[in-house]
């Protein structure tokens, strides 16, 4: 990267900005000082770094796995180290739907509704055998055989119940997944261009 010369934005001509002088002073200061800390990088990386280290989960705990999630939050495993410690009880404030425990036919509409209420971007982690396939209750008449039949799932954490270490590993896989996303477009937001006739 060369030195920054003129802080310009493409769509507006440089002369039309009002406060050019102070910005230019800042540029000369930065360029002159040399040892001042300036990080130059991809804004996507910065945002994803922040997003992936503050994943707020909606703790949708229906049975056993939820207790292991509580153990994960306590002092020994301490998921706060990785930025998961804030669990939200409202879907509006959550990034991640953490499904822990069997989802039954009666609960499935409620789960779908919570998922729909969450704001984009949102993720789903399926914890434990029950959420993945129905687990030991696969043959039951009242159990959904895998929540991916109802909502899309990002990470599966197998186990009955998974150990806290497994939960941490699964959540860190989710972090990796968040980190490669392009927040400002690119593959994640690619929409088909409208055809000219339609316009």
């Amino acid at each position, binding site marked *: 990267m060369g030195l920054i010369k003129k802080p310009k934005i493409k769509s507006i001509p440089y002369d039309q900005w009002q406060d050019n002088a102070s910005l230019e002073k800042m540029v000369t200061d930065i360029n002159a000082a040399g040892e001042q800390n300036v990080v130059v990088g991809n804004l996507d990386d910065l945002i994803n770094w922040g997003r992936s280290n503050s994943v707020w989960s909606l703790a949708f705990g229906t049975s*056993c796995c939820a207790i292991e999630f509580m153990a994960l939050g306590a002092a020994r495993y301490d998921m706060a180290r990785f930025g998961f410690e804030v669990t939200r009880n409202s879907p509006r404030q959550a990034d991640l739907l953490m499904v822990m425990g*069997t989802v039954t036919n009666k*609960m499935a509409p*409620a789960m779908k509704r919570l998922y729909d209420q969450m704001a984009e971007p949102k993720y789903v982690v399926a914890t434990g055998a029950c959420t993945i396939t129905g687990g*030991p209750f696969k043959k039951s008449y*009242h159990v959904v055989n895998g929540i991916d039949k109802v909502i899309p799932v990002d990470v599966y954490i197998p186990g009955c119940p998974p150990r806290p270490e497994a939960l941490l590993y699964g959540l860190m896989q989710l972090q990796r997944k968040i980190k490669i996303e392009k927040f400002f477009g690119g593959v994640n937001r690619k929409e088909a261009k409208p055809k000219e006739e339609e316009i």
Partner: protein
Amino acid sequence: MSIKDRILAIVPEATFTEQADLIATVPASSFRKLAEGLRYDKEDPMDFMRDIVGMDWGESLGAYYYLESTKTYNRIALRTETTDRENPLLPSVCDLWKTAEIKEREAYDFFGIKFTNNPDMRRIFLRDNWVGFPFRKDYDLNSNPLDMSNETNEEFSDDYLFDADGKEIDKKNRIFGKKEFVVNIGPQHPSTHGVLRLRTSVVGETVTKVDPVCGYIHRGIEKMNESLTYPQTLALTDRLDYLAANQNRHALCMCIEKAIGIEIPERVDYIRTIIDELQRIDSHLLYFACLIMDMGGLTPFFYGFRDREIILDILEKTTGGRLIQNYNRIGGVQADIYPEFQKDVKAFIKHMRGIIHEYHEVVTGNVIFTTRLKGMGILTNEDAISLGCTGGSGRASGWHNDVRKHHPYSMYGKVDFKEIVYNECDSFARYMVRMDEIMESMKIIEQLIDNIPEGDYLVKTKPIIRVPEGVYSTSVEASRGEFGVLLESKGDKVPYRLHYRSTGFPLVHAMDTVCRGNKIADLIAIGGSMDYVIPDIDR
């Protein structure tokens, strides 16, 4: 007068079967008379209804009623049935035992048995638009596919009311009045300890009625059991009440061992008892952590989990599982204890005894905590018995109901421990019972830990276990009440019916009685102090 004679004095046509449990079979027409007679008997009133177990015997539908006297601790089971499968009617006993209100709803939900004169005959576990009754033997398991439409609730309850002459009374029973303000708590709520839904009617801030809606984690375990072999059924018990995983499984193993008549070595009894008590401490520590977290205090959560992890380490080293151990097996336990087991357990007890004062310093004397619990959520002794609230919540109401004491199993008959009973009946007493039980459990473990006898840890059983025909039942004191198993066998390698007495079901039912008149802000604290685990209720 023996219980048999007393029953015969009321209903002369009663017949008795005595393979394992003493069961009195009475026709439905005279059942009501017998129930009243036993309930209001002067010397030995059967005032605690342990369970109603709906049954489908092919040609007839019916139920087992398990009764116990709180005075003499005598137990009796009654059986009654009706052959009308289209419109099965049985007399309700909900005015004699309050717990029957909800247990009859359970039997209706699963078997379609209608209890006459029970004012509330709605479904409790399944959706209102569910087709058929899943526990009947002729139910098609695929008849109710996943329904993703939003759930609605009936405005009126179904009922089958008859007057004294047997004429049907046409009366509509509205669940909530038109002008009542109903707050819907759950099913996804952080402080309901699972997926419980409480429809709560309030006037201002005062709770006037709580209508629990269960079944959000109803997994059909009892129905699944009917197609699993006996060793396979064991796996599901751990997932009922996961904080009493080992005790639940202990109950089922004892029941099957009793049925097939195998003697288990003394070493196994010692190991089972110690692990049961470790599990109880684990559960009560979690209770402590969660109750106070529900009320907004976060520090005790870390205290509870810090010490709980030590138990989980011991359990993991012994059994391989942290939360769900899968340890007991028919005829013994899965694996022998590890060489340093005694040392680790003793180290834990020493640590716990040295640190429990921290719990009391931070919480028990805390003025905010005591103000929110003392005098709140009164469950009177009478109500506790009538509602069948066993375990710590019942003992906080002055009811001596510890199964370990009154129907000892495993090593409990041979160890010295105190049954913790409080007479305050409020939330604070329920909390204190748990805290004191931690100390008692440690006392039990200390008496056993050095004396574990040598011997086998597992008796070899046949690869395919067939239980002789009959009805068997056992009960244990699980972490939060009496956990019972009822097993009816027809001599096959799979059970004909395997029913579990849920420990939390009566506690959720009691929420209506306990919360009325309290402020809605206290509802969560009262619910936390009652200590229920939802997967155990819904099964």
